């Protein structure tokens, strides 16, 4: 970068200050909806009735308690965890194994199989969601956690295999060759030499997949119809549908839905952006 001036002229300083001012305003605008959720969720019951959208005009946890118990957001949160964690683990494990094979282990039919898998990047879930509904019903997996987890993990496999293959392809050959000369078996080269080198990629994929699964709306909406299991996304959606519901608990429900995602992002923002970036640039 050529922009490493040591001393700024007054004019440059003014430009820079105006940039910052503009960026602060835009950042606040971008965050405004999140602030609004937080503010309404933390109001007292009376205040919500009078002034639901005034920012931070009162403070209580009443709405959160209401949402957690009456709104069943506690159980939605549990269902979100029960769906998201196993499906994320499945996607990451299967993608890592297959990504390694697609990148570094030649076998007959490898290319055609790889294309069949990454076809999933081109075909939206949309195209096959209807037949999949009846297929799950026939398999006895409709309305079950297991069925939904299997579907959720499959929706991440096209990107996962694609991403991990790219990651393993970029690793140098030397270590693999050296281990082979030392007489290590192929399985050992994978598990003890190459896999440790892939940890950054696996980390990025895990965070990315977790977010996708946590936010997924259509899969639980379609394949968990009875409501015995209901994650936060569809829980919040159906809570809105019940018109008698107050804005206060709704805001609290929205807060419970977004909080894990926002916290995860703030903690691991580098991995998250990297995941989305590579998803975009390479896909």
């Amino acid at each position: 970068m050529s922009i490493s001036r040591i001393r700024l002229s007054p004019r440059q300083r003014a430009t820079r200050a105006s940039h910052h001012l503009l960026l602060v305003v835009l950042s606040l605008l971008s965050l405004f909806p999140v602030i609004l959720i937080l503010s309404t969720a933390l109001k007292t019951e009376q205040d919500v009735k009078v002034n639901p959208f005034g920012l931070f005009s009162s403070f209580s946890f009443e709405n959160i308690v209401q949402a957690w118990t009456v709104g069943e957001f506690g159980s939605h949160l549990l269902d979100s965890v029960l769906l998201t964690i196993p499906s994320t683990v499945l996607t990451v494990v299967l993608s890592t194994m297959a990504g390694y094979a697609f990148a570094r282990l030649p076998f007959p039919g490898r290319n055609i199989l790889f294309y069949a898998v990454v076809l999933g990047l081109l075909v939206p879930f949309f195209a096959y969601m209807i037949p999949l509904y009846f297929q799950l019903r026939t398999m006895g997996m409709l309305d079950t956690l297991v069925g939904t987890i299997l579907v959720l993990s499959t929706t991440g496999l096209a990107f996962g295999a694609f991403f991990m293959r790219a990651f393993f392809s970029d690793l140098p050959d030397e270590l693999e060759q050296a281990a082979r000369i030392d007489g290590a078996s192929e399985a050992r080269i994978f598990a003890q030499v190459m896999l440790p080198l892939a940890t950054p990629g696996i980390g990025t994929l895990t965070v990315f997949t977790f977010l996708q699964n946590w936010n997924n709306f259509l899969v639980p909406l379609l394949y968990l119809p009875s409501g015995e299991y209901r994650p936060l996304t569809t829980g919040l959606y159906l809570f809105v549908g019940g018109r008698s519901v107050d804005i206060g608990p709704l805001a609290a429900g929205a807060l419970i839905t977004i909080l894990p995602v926002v916290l995860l992002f703030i903690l691991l923002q580098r991995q998250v952006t990297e995941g989305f970036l590579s998803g975009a640039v390479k896909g």
Partner: protein
Amino acid sequence: MNPPTRSHSAPRVTRRAQARLGVALVAPLLAFVTVFFLFPLGNAIYYSMLDYNGVDPSPAFVGLGNFVELATDPALGPAFMNNIIWIVLGTAAPVVIGLSLALLMWTVRRASTLYRVALFIPYILPAVAAGVVWSWIYDPMRGWLNQLLRSVGLDALATGWLGNPNTALCAVLVTAVWATTGFVFVVLLSSLRNVDAELLDAARMDGANSLQRVWYIVLPQIMPVFLMIVTLTLVGGFSVFDIVFIMTGGGPSNATEVLGTYAYSNAFQLNRISYGTALALVITVLAIPFAVALNRLQRRLSFQESV
């Protein structure tokens, strides 16, 4: 996306061991993909040629009947138009705003992480939460948008944004633009890192103004990434569903109906399973040529760049 061709000649024993392990490592993933992706996808093609209502054990085979009906369905045209509006505005707005933001951030070092986080957060929020909070902003009486308009004397413009057929599509679109702009911004910002700064300085010396510099120097250099974003939003624009379904469900009086919500309501509310499936396939097939064409163009550009 081409698999690398590894040309080192390993001994036959090694190659056999590699092939064995390769098949073993790929097999579980293939089982999932086959059962939960390829099989239902093939089934979708079969379904689209039936007249299935979800219960009938032996639905009639109608061949291309559903597709013929689609071609003459009067409700499909407006839905398709809404997709086109969605694609054009939903691509143009985030790209213009995102690029402006990225250029603004380009030289900023201090607090840059903070700005990036603030602008990216909308993109990672679940669509349901975005829908809920934006419907409050659009609330006819107490929503921030109308309050703001009234406070500056523009009472005439205040309306029930999501309930008014004339504004509903735009209102939902603004929510989507809010959600995607941060992503476009981060992608473009990272691509700006590769822009040749010396070229830019030279252009400045030659008296090019900032708009000219962006148009002639910056844009050509980030063109592959630019096209990639257009591809993504374009493909997404054909299959848009979540945010529309959540905020308006296609209403009021079909004003926000897009192909996705129309396919969904046919399949799951009107029990016209086959018709909905046929439409979902048409949506997919519509998007693919655009995606492939743009992807080709993008790759050709990045190839030229690397030569």
